[in-house]
């Protein structure tokens, strides 16, 4: 077992650190704001990072990446945190959707989309969730119908779409065949966000920030080459995205600011609190969970280096991170008092952010189901949707509601 950098990794880290020290004054000041100006600044910063090879570290060289491993990606994350500068703006694109295109896209899709994505010239959003398809993602109803000319027409609604209001493209999961069981009739598409019939409506999050949206599609025309992966194979393509999502979250929790040291520092200045047994117990409990997640991340990284793919157990790290960060926000605010709830306070921001994060990427309940079944091998709950064509399933659901 060895947690230390190899000589090559140490050299890589030193290079990254030097570059960040030399360029940190070019970085935008992070304010948690979502106005046009700060988005433009963060786009430019992403481009600067990409040119320095600090974005898309694990992407193949031919698509503008560095072709390096997950360890180098983590080294970059750690050094960006250390330098106290923002990371890339489009984590969803570069971390999840780009790798999905690399895995399932056509050569012309990769050539067209990956470069501008990496440099932040075109930001991407993930159009998976719907009002009635969140944890049960395969229940999506947005319909895409093939036209005679090989193109498609898309109608439906997506929701909880981060960054949609300034995204150029979205990757969208749609139902293309309602007459087969629900996991089988899905297809993945690239959708231009400025297309005719696309309407974006901002949703204000609990914090008040408008970086969330619902997106409506009214008979939007798509070309035949908008399809990513096989027609009817959208579920497999979506699973690839979700795997990269777990990896991005699993290796990036420190970069997201969920660090034991940060919360301890917030309490340490209060001479009374730092001696209060109740404060210390709470701080100790939440801190050991965050430290555990950090080292669980390193364990995942070890496995990745050996070519293993992160499995559903990484869902446990997400559950722990959310739980500990909620407790941390509560503790710091209990110590600081109502002042911590000031709109400009980082603690108010954290406290507002966590309830939504608890459901993001799968609710805690669905994650526990998945881990229980796929890792512990416990039997699934009886399911009423297996093997039934999606159209019939919907009819049954409507009948069940009507009979109540």
């Amino acid at each position, binding site marked *: *077992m060895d*947690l230390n*950098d190899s000589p090559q990794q140490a050299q890589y880290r030193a290079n990254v650190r030097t570059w960040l020290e030399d360029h940190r004054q070019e970085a935008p000041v992070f304010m948690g704001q979502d106005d046009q100006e700060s988005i433009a600044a963060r786009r430019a910063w992403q481009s600067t990072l990409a040119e320095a090879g600090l974005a898309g570290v694990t992407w193949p060289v031919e698509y503008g990446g560095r072709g390096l491993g997950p360890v180098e990606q983590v080294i970059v994350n750690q050094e960006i945190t250390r330098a106290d500068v923002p990371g890339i703006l489009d984590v969803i694109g570069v971390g999840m959707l780009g790798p999905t295109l690399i895995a399932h896209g056509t050569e012309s899709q990769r050539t067209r989309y990956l470069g501008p994505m990496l440099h932040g010239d075109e930001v991407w959003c993930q159009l998976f969730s719907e009002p009635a398809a969140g944890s049960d993602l395969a229940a999506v109803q947005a319909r895409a119908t093939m036209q005679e000319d090989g193109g498609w027409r898309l109608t439906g609604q997506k929701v909880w779409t981060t960054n949609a209001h300034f995204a150029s493209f979205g990757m969208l999961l749609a139902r293309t065949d309602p007459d087969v069981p629900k996991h089988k009739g899905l297809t993945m598409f690239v959708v231009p966000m400025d297309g005719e019939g696309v309407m974006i409506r901002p949703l204000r999050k609990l914090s008040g920030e408008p970086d969330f949206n619902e997106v409506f599609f009214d008979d939007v025309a798509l070309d035949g080459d908008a399809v990513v992966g096989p027609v009817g194979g959208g579920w497999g393509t979506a699973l690839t995205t979700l795997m990269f999502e777990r990896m991005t979250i699993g290796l990036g929790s420190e970069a997201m600011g969920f660090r034991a040291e940060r919360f301890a520092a917030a*309490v340490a200045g209060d001479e009374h609190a730092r001696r209060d047994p109740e404060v210390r117990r709470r701080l*100790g409990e939440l*801190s*050991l969970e965050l430290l555990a997640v950090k080292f669980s991340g390193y*364990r995942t990284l070890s496995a990745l280096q050996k070519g293993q793919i992160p499995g559903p*157990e990484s869902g446990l790290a997400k*559950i722990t991170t959310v739980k500990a960060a909620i407790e941390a926000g509560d503790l710091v605010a209990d110590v600081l008092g109502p002042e911590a709830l000031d709109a400009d306070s980082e603690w108010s921001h954290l406290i507002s952010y966590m309830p939504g994060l608890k459901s993001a990427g799968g609710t805690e309940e669905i994650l526990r189901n998945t881990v229980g079944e796929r890792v512990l091998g416990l039997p699934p709950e009886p399911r009423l949707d297996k093997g039934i064509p999606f159209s019939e399933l919907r009819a049954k659901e409507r009948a069940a509601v009507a009979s109540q």
Partner: protein
Amino acid sequence: MNLELTDEQGFLRDAARDALSRVKTVAAAREAIEDPASLPDLWPTACEAGWAGLLVGEKNGGAGLGAFDAMLVLMEAGRVLAGIELLGHLPASQLLDRAGDERAGEVAEGTLRACFVAARPPGDVAAGWTVEALSGSQRATAPVLGDDGMLRGRACWVVDAPGAGLLVAAASRQSDGSPVAVVVEAEGDGVSIERVVRYDATRSIGHVTFDRAEGDVLSGVGGDELAGAWYLAQALLGAESLGAVDTALATSVAYAKERFTFGRAIGSYQAVKHGLVEVLRLRENAYSLLVYAGWAYEDARNEFPLAASAARAAAGHALDYASRALISVHGGSGATWEHDAPLYFRRAQLSRRLLGGLGDATDRVAGELLSAA
């Protein structure tokens, strides 16, 4: 970076599992509740396997392995509730080795069993070196090495003290209160060890009294080394607890798959499933922290107090939760002697109250972070 076990660590773990499987340790734990004297002596097994000298350098006749290797052995012991006196012996052996004590060779062989009479080091709030009191939340001061060279004082609930040949006591000097390691022959004048059995009969514990006991001061062992031994004991206790969690989880999961109610396996119900996933979550967290402690022991010694305290607290909490889940998944029978579940519950109940207790380990996590902030 590579956090997977090395081949050698895999062999060490498998060999430990194999050696312990030759003794019916869980059945013995059950019998020992009524007849503590019936507990099998596993020390010869430990000596034969080389565990006694695991942390002693090769120069002094040991294997010169690391803290995580020792944790792997303790995990295997915990898995089958084997009462091997390694929690007391290993930290003591490591101090003797470090001081280059002439008895280190015998200790490494295991012909001389040592026991660390642990004292909790001062923290950011609590001053002084303290030991477990007989009862109550107020800790007792560590034994004192008088200006006359004699050791006086009492430490209660000392893990693995009964039957040890050599005691390595963390003490304070009468002259200036500075910490010192004193080696005392267990059979010598002025030393008494009262064997006690509490709830978990597999655990050897004793109250140790020094009344003008003669001892040798270990050279080159000061506060840092004594604190290191305390935190090593924390990490080892955490590892042992984690092993017990693994058995509790596997047993619970197996039963949840085969027990049916209302026409379904109970493991298909979310209420049961989510509880068992919680055991797994706590288990994974504890294992990651043991990995942290193993790494810090070798390569980031200043983080070892934080890592070891976190690992012990996480593993202890995981065992608490797992042993209760083990009982409740098995319904009524889990709370009777018809099942092994009560043995794991007993292990959890006593373990959480030893070596400062779970609450103190959690407080140390906070203390280390606050001090560094």
